[in-house]
């Protein structure tokens, strides 16, 4: 509490990172797997198209990478702003 004035910078760096991650999160699931699927229909994957792959497996893999990327970046941001434990 009552930390240094750099808390604002820390918080906006966090919000920026979360926003980027959520854009990718929405893009792979609602985008590639569902609404934009027709755009990917030309790309064949194992007897079907890339949109189907994203719906059944691809988005789960991207979610995984996203959480670990967020955790790694966030730890770095914590250290840079001196608020890590």
């Amino acid at each position, binding site marked *: 509490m009552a930390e240094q004035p750099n808390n604002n910078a820390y918080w906006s760096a966090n919000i920026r990172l979360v926003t980027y991650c959520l854009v990718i999160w929405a893009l792979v*699931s609602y985008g590639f797997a569902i609404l934009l699927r027709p755009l990917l229909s030309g790309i064949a994957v194992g007897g079907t198209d890339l949109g189907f792959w994203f*719906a059944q497996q691809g*988005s*789960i893999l991207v979610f995984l990478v996203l959480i670990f990327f967020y*955790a790694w970046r966030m730890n770095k941001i914590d250290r840079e702003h001196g608020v890590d434990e």
Partner: protein
Amino acid sequence: MDQTTLNIIVVGLSFALYFGIAIWARAGSTSEFYAAGRGVNPVVNGMATAADWMSAASFISMAGLIAFVGYNNSSFLMGWTGGYVLMALLLAPYLRKFGKFTVPEFIGDRYYSTTARIVAVVCLIVISITYVIGQMSGAGVAFARFLEVDRDLGLFIAAGVVLVYAVLGGMKGITYTQVAQYCVLIIAYTIPAIFISLQLTGNPIPGLGLFSNMSEGTTGAGEPLLVTLNGLLTDLGFNQYTEGTSPVNMALFTLSLMIGTAGLPHVIIRFFTVPKVADARWSAGWALVFIALLYLTAPAVGAMARLNIMTTMWPQGVEGEAVAQEDLPDWFETWSVTGLLAVEDKNGDGRIQYYNESSEEMAAMAAERGWEGNELVTFNRDILVLANPEIAQLPSWVIALIAAGGIAAALSTAAGLLLAISSAISHDLIKSTLNPNISEKSELLAARISMIGAIAVATWLGLNPPGFAAQTVALAFGLAAASLFPTLMMGIFSKRMNSAGATWGMLAGLLTTCLYLFTYLGWFFIPGTNMLENTASNYLFGIPPASFGPIGALANFVVAYLVSKATAEPPQEIQDLVESIRVPRGAGAATGH
């Protein structure tokens, strides 16, 4: 050795393991009972979270749901995993920093309001009780089928097992039991899947087998599995496996499952058990790793099982003859006894024709070939995973393993839910409102007694399942999405959000969601009291009741924003509290309760 004896041995060994862990990890303090003493390694916590989250629905039902619908039901895969992104980025680290024991406790403190805390307790209990009914009756059915006992006796055994390890160990015992249960359930799920994938495609990894070519000696050898499946389905008048119908509804349903997942209290509390804020972030990632092992396999299990069923029913392809009744595999007979599977030789030709009778093209073909309707009259989707080893003719020890896995999935989730319920009662109702001076020892006793009470209620509801149980699952997800998630999120991301805004927002989300569900499903789900018929043409903007969660969440956000704008901003100490939640430093010290 016969199958039942083998099942009893394997299931019995797994129980011995759970009990051993419960005795080893007995809880001695409230911190250990509610939050496992906050000493859980993030990888271990991730594994426990995975077992906690993956219920009988994930283990038993999901592959069947995908198998019979195909692409459209990918919503379950994305929805039930995508919620973890929201949880990891928007909730888990901050709630861990807050350092308290329960979700209503956070809402009550952040919004400096006992009313808000009580509303949150009500939401939590409705969400968790609904879930627990399903888990207990699921475990009862699994016991009944695999140990060949009465369904009621099966349920009592399940309740007894949960009672011992949950009451004794609290969160600490549950955590380590769930780790063991995760191992049992993931092995049970993947071994049959690997065998089946090898049989069909020669690929030992089922998730890759789904996109591989069929191996020699199988139907459609040399071409991709999904092409073979699509071909067989369209030949029989079904929709293509890989084609979808309504993208907008699918997106909305996926969103509903994601927000609902992120707002489920029994999953959120698992992130209170790790030592540091950074660990809460890692832990969410590890949880998804362990969940993904099953969720990447499930679509393969679904597609391969569907293919196996089609080739069983039509051994020479659709142009040839359907399967003769006496040639049906043994598992048909075993499962017919349970009533979950039934055939009826309508045209009396001694063969069982399976096709989509509502397709016009098929109706013409049926008339020409003397069929009188689809003869595979019942195929409960839940038997797909449980019968999978039998469908693929795997050895009997694999069947015993699946029994132990299904039971582990149901029991681990039931234990997590019962803990969430009992801590809401002992901590949020008894300690905070009724008797604030209660000693730690008495609180621990109260927690154990409320746990026993919760198990008794869950068992009773499992024995007499209310007719609305299936529909309240939609309510539980909608409720978590519309009430808890937005309120928790605003508590962290908006310093300006005040008590009035949060309370009115929660009520708005809660009431619009309930109202929408009751309109189509009846007041409090009493049949016949619905105001509009539950059909697509009646839905507001075509939104089905199960997909309404995001709209309820939106109502919550909007009302909360407007009310908070019109009322005074929260006191300075609350704004400082929000400020402190946002930075990780000092999480270890903040444990006052």
